[in-house]
């Protein structure tokens, strides 16, 4: 981009040597497994090259079910995380006593392991309390915790619970790096703190490349969601059934491989993994674009 400054050009070749260690490590943990995965996906049951795994995959209803589950899960959890994260941002930008204490409390979910989110938001920790409270104190009817209409939103919501604080932290960093005059101007025009938030801060935050980068990253991470659905498929007794509404892509592939009755369909799973890989590369391209605009 910039014209090269004098004297730097001639050392360029040496700088590439710094890439050797990371390239060596990546060859083992990334490049080789990826190529091997592609090879496996093209291997038939009796050896020999075939595209049969891909056509088998594309005809597989459980695969498409898990694609739909993952897309729904990812969209829901990202949307809820944006909502809650912006809400948290509003709260910690108000003039309240003990603001930093609240901020510290709000970031606690980030420290929870995803598998522990599945435990902490599971029936025995939270929902049996809520159920008992609503039935015995509020005298409301029972709700079915094993019903998909209940546990699916809970799964996406608890995923959002963990990551909303990240949205808050990124929003705060965007607010701090934007010129202070914007907020002063809004105040001068007599905007209330709620108006300032909804009309100035939210648009500024959501249109910033940093936030968009983080949201894309969050969406992709949610597409790989595994731990919370695994926990819930245990809570509601779906550990051995495939094609359930809790089967995100990762959980579907995991069940295919590790439930013995499916006979370790390695080639099929590799084909699915290659399909996921291509989606990943598209996502990485989008993120590189955003990364470019952050640098400016």
């Amino acid at each position: 981009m910039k014209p090269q400054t004098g004297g730097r050009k001639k050392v360029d070749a040496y700088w590439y040597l710094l890439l050797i260690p990371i390239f060596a490590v990546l060859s083992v943990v990334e490049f080789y497994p990826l190529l091997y995965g592609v090879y496996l996906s093209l291997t038939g049951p009796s050896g020999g090259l075939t595209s049969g795994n891909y056509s088998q995959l594309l005809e597989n209803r459980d695969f498409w079910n898990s694609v739909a589950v993952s897309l729904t899960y990812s969209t829901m959890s990202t949307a809820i995380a944006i909502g809650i994260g912006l809400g948290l941002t509003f709260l910690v930008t108000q003039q309240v006593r003990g603001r930093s204490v609240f901020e510290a409390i709000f970031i606690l979910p980030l420290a929870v392991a995803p598998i522990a989110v599945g435990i902490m938001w599971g029936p025995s920790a939270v929902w049996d309390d809520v159920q008992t409270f609503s039935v015995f104190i509020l005298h409301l009817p029972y709700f079915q915790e094993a019903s998909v209409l209940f546990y699916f939103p809970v799964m996406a919501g608890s995923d959002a619970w963990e990551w909303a604080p990240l949205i808050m932290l990124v929003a705060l960093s965007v607010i701090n790096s934007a010129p202070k005059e914007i907020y002063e101007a809004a105040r001068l025009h007599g905007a209330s703190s709620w108006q300032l938030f909804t009309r100035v801060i939210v648009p500024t935050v959501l249109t910033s490349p940093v936030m968009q980068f983080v949201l894309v990253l969050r969406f992709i991470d949610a597409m790989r969601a595994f731990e919370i659905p695994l926990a819930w498929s245990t809570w509601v007794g779906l550990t051995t059934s495939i094609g359930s509404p809790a089967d995100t892509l990762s959980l579907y592939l995991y069940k295919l491989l590790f439930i013995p009755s499916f006979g370790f369909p390695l080639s099929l799973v590799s084909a699915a993994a290659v399909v996921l890989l291509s989606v990943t590369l598209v996502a990485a391209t989008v993120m590189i674009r955003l990364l470019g605009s952050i640098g400016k």
Partner: protein
Amino acid sequence: MTTQVTHPKEKARPARSRPRKLAGRALLYLVLLLTTLYTIYPIIATALDGMDLNIAALFAGNNIVLIDSIPFPQGIFRFNPTPYLDALTVGAFPARIVNSLLIGGISVGIALLVGIPVSYMLARVDIKGKGAISFVLLALRTVSPFAVVIPLYIFFTRVGLWDTFPGVAMAELLLILTVVVWMVKGFFADIPRQIYDAASLFGASEGQIFRRVALPIVIQGIAITAIFGFILVWNEYLIAVIMTGPLTKPVAVGVFSGLGAINKTPDFVDIEAGATLAFLPAAAVMLAIRKYLAKGFSLATAS
């Protein structure tokens, strides 16, 4: 008009709006309280359940709680530290903590060793292929673990690296390598250009500039990155559950094992005590480096 509303906070407001303002404040504190409850209730309920302090029992008469809409008589609210003590003394928990420390330590060590040179390069010079390097690292961060971990699992089983500490630690690089490179790069990029220029003006070689000038400045940032990466590995489940066996099983996997196919009647209390014990150190560390969390989780795009 403009002078009247210069600073709404300081200026005495007309008497009419004071009750409304008070109501607004009250509402704000109420929402804060409810949000706090929403944030920490799952954590607290889990911690309390782990010592038999089941809050549901307080709502139900005769110690009856509803589990899956069915009344159960065993809900109790009585302090019993056994699950925690068991986890810390008789269970496999202490061994799993050692495993987690080893896996995290080796993994972060490798990531720093191979990552820091790249971070430095990306922050320091404009060379060709920078975009390609960024792309590979981002793709590494976004790739579905299954695309990599399954072939890696087969490869590692063949060469005898499965269920060994170096093997698991290498696999965890999938999770932290990009994070480490980007985070450290952010710290290097914060060094003003003039410092480098001054150093080379005094005749320092590139190697000396890195070792004597840049590295000491970012050493604190590297420590923070190491801690952050360690917690990511500590909390990671999917790679660990596939790449570890009986010898190297870490805390996150240990907390949830005993569920599913192995044990039909999972002991929730033990799982909850384990989840709490695994959470506490992570929370303490995360709070200690909270200023840098946005940087870590956003691949240093946010500061």
